């Protein structure tokens, strides 16, 4: 058996859509007026099992549950990884089915410069990869690299491609997760 260092326990993924890019650029999601929430949104109930592991601390704030954890990422030329507290917010009355990762611009790993441009034939996924040591590492994945045989771990690539290729409404972003510790998985397509 090899070292457990860097072993992936689970990952949560979400397709980056145009609205997400505008948020990363600190522009409004739904108007040309600027501003707006700067967050990545997920269907709350569907991803809750893995959100509770990726953001393991529960805080009640203003009567709402806030799931708190930390993101880790590497900056070029810096040996030690950077770590920032990250929060996943529970739904509000106005959006009762949505949970979201808040304050996206405070994480340089989500900078628009790092976000692949993507296209209708090369969709981009945000990956939150949790290791066995419980650290969570955000990354972006391009569809075209996933389709290159041998580029990615075959299980991870197949999991993501299966969900990318699943049938869903045209205006619905690809969202899912895979947990290697209990064989549980979710994909919002059929």
């Amino acid at each position: 058996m090899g070292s457990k260092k860097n072993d992936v326990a689970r990952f949560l993924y979400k397709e980056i859509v145009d609205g997400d890019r505008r948020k990363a650029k600190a522009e409004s999601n739904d108007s040309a007026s600027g501003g707006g929430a700067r967050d990545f949104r997920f269907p709350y109930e569907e991803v809750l099992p893995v959100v509770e592991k990726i953001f393991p601390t529960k805080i009640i704030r203003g009567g709402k549950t806030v799931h708190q954890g930390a993101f880790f990422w590497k900056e070029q030329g810096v040996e030690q990884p950077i770590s920032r507290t990250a929060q996943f917010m529970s739904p509000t009355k106005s959006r009762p089915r949505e949970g979201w990762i808040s304050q996206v611009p405070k994480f340089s790993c989500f900078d628009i410069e790092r976000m692949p441009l993507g296209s209708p034939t090369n969709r981009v996924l945000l990956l939150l990869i949790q290791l066995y040591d419980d650290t969570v590492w955000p990354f972006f994945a391009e569809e075209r690299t996933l389709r290159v045989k041998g580029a990615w771990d075959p299980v991870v690539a197949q999991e993501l491609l299966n969900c990318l290729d699943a049938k869903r409404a045209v205006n619905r972003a690809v969202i899912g997760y895979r947990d290697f510790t209990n064989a549980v998985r979710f994909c919002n397509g059929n």
Partner: protein
Amino acid sequence: MATDDCKLALKLLARSRNVLISGPPGTGKSKLLAEVALAFEAAFGIGPAGGAPKLNPVGGIPIPPAAGGAVKDIPAPTKTNRKVFRTVFHQNSKYRDFLSGITPAVNKAAGAPDFTIVKGTLYRASEHAKADGGAALLIIDEINRGPAVQVFGGAIVAIESDKRLAADGSKRSETQFFEMLDPPTGDVIEYALPHDLYILAAMNQADASVEPLDVAFLRRWEPLRLEPDERALRDFYGLGAKGAGALPDPLVNVTDALEASVRAWVAVNEQISLGRGPEFQIGHGVLMSDVKPQTLPLPEALGTLCVGWAKVRAHIEEVFFGDSRGIAATLNALDGPAFNPFKLTETTFADDLRFRLEGPTNFNEDNIYPALRAFAKG
């Protein structure tokens, strides 16, 4: 992460496709089945060393393929549509439930046939493994509690590793076909089992089976034997290696009681092995539960020992049923110490010598430690 037994089971499955786990009760057979099922389905071991996918935080691709090239010791490493099928054999298990057969149609639509063809567990697992990217693990617990040879029917030869279809689904010269009722059509067809169907079964050899497993059946399986494991029990109790000293009298603390439990269990198994054979031993799992006794106050810890040792005693009485001297020898009650709560007495019935084991009806907090000390022979 996977235990050594789990990794060994995966390795044997990859090599032989059919693995039969055996061992005395309480040695972790069912637990191992569950662990292998999770490892197979979660695709642990896609990496060459049998580990999970690894993050590369500084490369372009965050989760690249594992370095090292060819994957070994893992069933169907390149298959991503992995599924586990489970069944437990029992006296009423039938070929129809395992492969296919005709059964009355329930809740049928008006005008629909009165009978339907069952898709048995082996058939469903086989069809899954034949699908694109498919691999199936079929788990059969208690395989010798049912009429296994009859349940497998014509598939008994076809399960052999070298009698399967090729990896691409094509027929090989060695492929063994057998006739069965085709569930989709109802026709009798020739059927063969796929390359990436893996079968993992478990049995307790000491159990009386409905029908014995014959040698021809057993040789189609690669054996994986589990044994009672003193180290596992000591780890569960939080004990180190066995010390040289005698058990104290009177009892001082929980650690002494747990040490007595381990030593008594080892001694009892030695006696069972001598008297009935090693396959009749009792596994460490019978003394383990969700509660760690070392975390409890002494009276409660003794209470948990009573629960476990009631099961050990029941096992001994079953193994030596009708043999009072055998039970007494196992419990060190033949020429045992005076503090042993169990005594073998002699009497006569119709001028015949009779033996009777006398002792407490149940273990309790007062008698469990002296009993364990006696079983442990000091």
